[in-house]
């Protein structure tokens, strides 16, 4: 049984389709990348799994199974309990993901699993684990005192501290500058290896996917275009859109040859095909 199994999930925004019959499987201790351009529906997929869809977006079909339990069939209270125990999020924007009027330690202590004896010690242990310097001081601070990178580290600590089975990282490095991005990426991979959780890594950056993911799902216009193991996708992309995306990605090993934009004709053809189904 897979850790996460999304079965032909469809979402609608007041009648307009947002996701169309999306399938996705994530195994335990797998890093699964989900890539796509803006509006491909990759973030919505994450939000649907976490149960925090925007007010107007509704599930129009399909199932989300976590260890075999269909999350969508659960009552709200049971689902919340499930979310708290098994799921965690590393958000896109670390600036707004921490409550500004509570200290880091208060917010971390909240996610620790039930029965933690010494929350204070545990919080500092986690802050140390994500390599935040002078963790004791940071624990007592309010979020606005910390830099973006530090906040993202604190949020990574919070995501793993709840001992989840699946972590969803929604473009976790987008809001950070390039020098911090690399550290945060390494940190996420390291924490994932240590804890053995499944990780869904949502991004628009194919380079990041190539670096850390085991499998990749390429999305466009709310549907899955291609699913493959990471090395296969990078070396032998099957779908024309994946090929075009790769051609549009800068690579340090290739000399300064011009990058190819994704051809408009291809997008138009895909939209036309999507219209049929």
């Amino acid at each position: 049984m897979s850790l996460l199994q999304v079965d032909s999930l469809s979402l609608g925004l007041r009648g307009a389709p947002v996701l169309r019959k999306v399938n996705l499987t994530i195994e335990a201790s797998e890093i699964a990348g989900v890539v796509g351009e803006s509006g491909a529906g990759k973030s919505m997929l994450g939000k649907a799994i976490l149960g925090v869809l925007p007010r107007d977006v509704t599930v129009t079909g399909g199932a989300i199974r976590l260890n075999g339990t269909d999350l969508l069939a659960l009552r709200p209270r049971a689902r919340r309990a499930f979310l708290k125990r098994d799921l965690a999020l590393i958000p896109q924007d670390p600036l707004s993901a921490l409550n500004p009027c509570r200290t880091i330690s208060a917010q971390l202590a909240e996610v620790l699993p039930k029965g933690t004896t010494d929350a204070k010690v545990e919080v500092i242990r986690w802050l140390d684990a994500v390599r935040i310097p002078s963790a004791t001081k940071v624990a007592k601070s309010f979020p606005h005192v910390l830099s973006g990178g530090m906040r993202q580290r604190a949020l990574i600590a919070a995501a793993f501290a709840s001992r989840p089975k699946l972590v969803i990282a929604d473009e976790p490095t987008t809001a950070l500058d390039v020098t911090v991005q690399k550290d945060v990426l390494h940190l996420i991979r390291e924490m994932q290896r240590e804890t053995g959780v499944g990780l869904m890594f949502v991004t628009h950056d194919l380079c990041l996917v190539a670096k850390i993911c085991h499998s990749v799902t390429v999305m466009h216009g709310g549907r899955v275009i291609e699913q493959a193991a990471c090395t296969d996708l990078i070396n032998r992309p099957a779908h024309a859109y994946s090929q075009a995306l790769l051609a549009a990605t800068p690579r340090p090993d290739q000399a300064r040859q011009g990058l190819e934009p994704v051809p408009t004709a291809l997008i138009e053809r895909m939209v036309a095909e999507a219209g049929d189904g």
Partner: protein
Amino acid sequence: MSSVESLSLEKGRGGGGTGLERSTEKISRLRMVFGGAAIGALLIAALFAPWIAPHDPTLDDLFLINMPPAWLNDDLAYFGIENAWAYPLGTDSLGRDVASRLIYGARLAVIVGVSVACLAALAGVVLGALAGFYGGWIDNVISRIVDVWLSFPPVLLSIILVAMLGTTLTSVIIVVAVIDWTRFARVVRADVLQQRSRDYIDAARITGGSDPSILIREVLPNVLPLLITLFFFEIGIAVTVETILSFVSLSVSSGAATWGDMIAEGRRVINEAWWVMAFPVGALVITILGLNAMGDALRFYLDPVLRK
């Protein structure tokens, strides 16, 4: 070159925080001191009125009509008193002691101001938070009610309502609260709306928070600094409205010592006895300035982002 120099000079001076931060803090401290002093004086006058006031505020004495304040009183023989400081702020056109009336007026102002602010805040926060947090039809219904409410001219509405309910202390409090709850509702709704779009609300949901617990534990603490500022502001407004109502004899039954009553009374004799009107006006201005200063200062000290 000069700009570079001045830049580095500014940096050199910085001890802790930037110049702007320090001056904000200094201003906040000044506001705190001024507001604290004004509110403190008001509260002492209100709580201990019977012990502080030199005379009964309603006791008239036709031998002591329009007596000037003690330091201007150079004709003690005319009024037949020995110590001018027995009536420190003089008397009004019925010979009542201005200082005593001012002190008892403060008591009424505090009762009305605080009760109104509490009632208005309660109604406004509950409705505003629901509207902002749940949105949709709940927001529509509450917001439209607020819009309709705001379309009535407030002073006119309060005069009509008091005329209907009768001129008692309770009815004045109810009327002003009923008129002013919309202020809280609007501000709280806007702030809750803004907070709930932040990611930490989603994060709280993922860690298993239910709607009520998220609203109370995550959202409302972030709205609190604003709410406290507004609370003090509202006390000032309620005091002003009460003054307006008693100015037109529509507050607590006339004869009782209220600032509005004193101002109305003093207006008639302004040419002979300016002090009858000047002192209540001064008290009103200082009270409202003090309340606003205190509200601003508290916001600075309560907001984790502003405070250092």
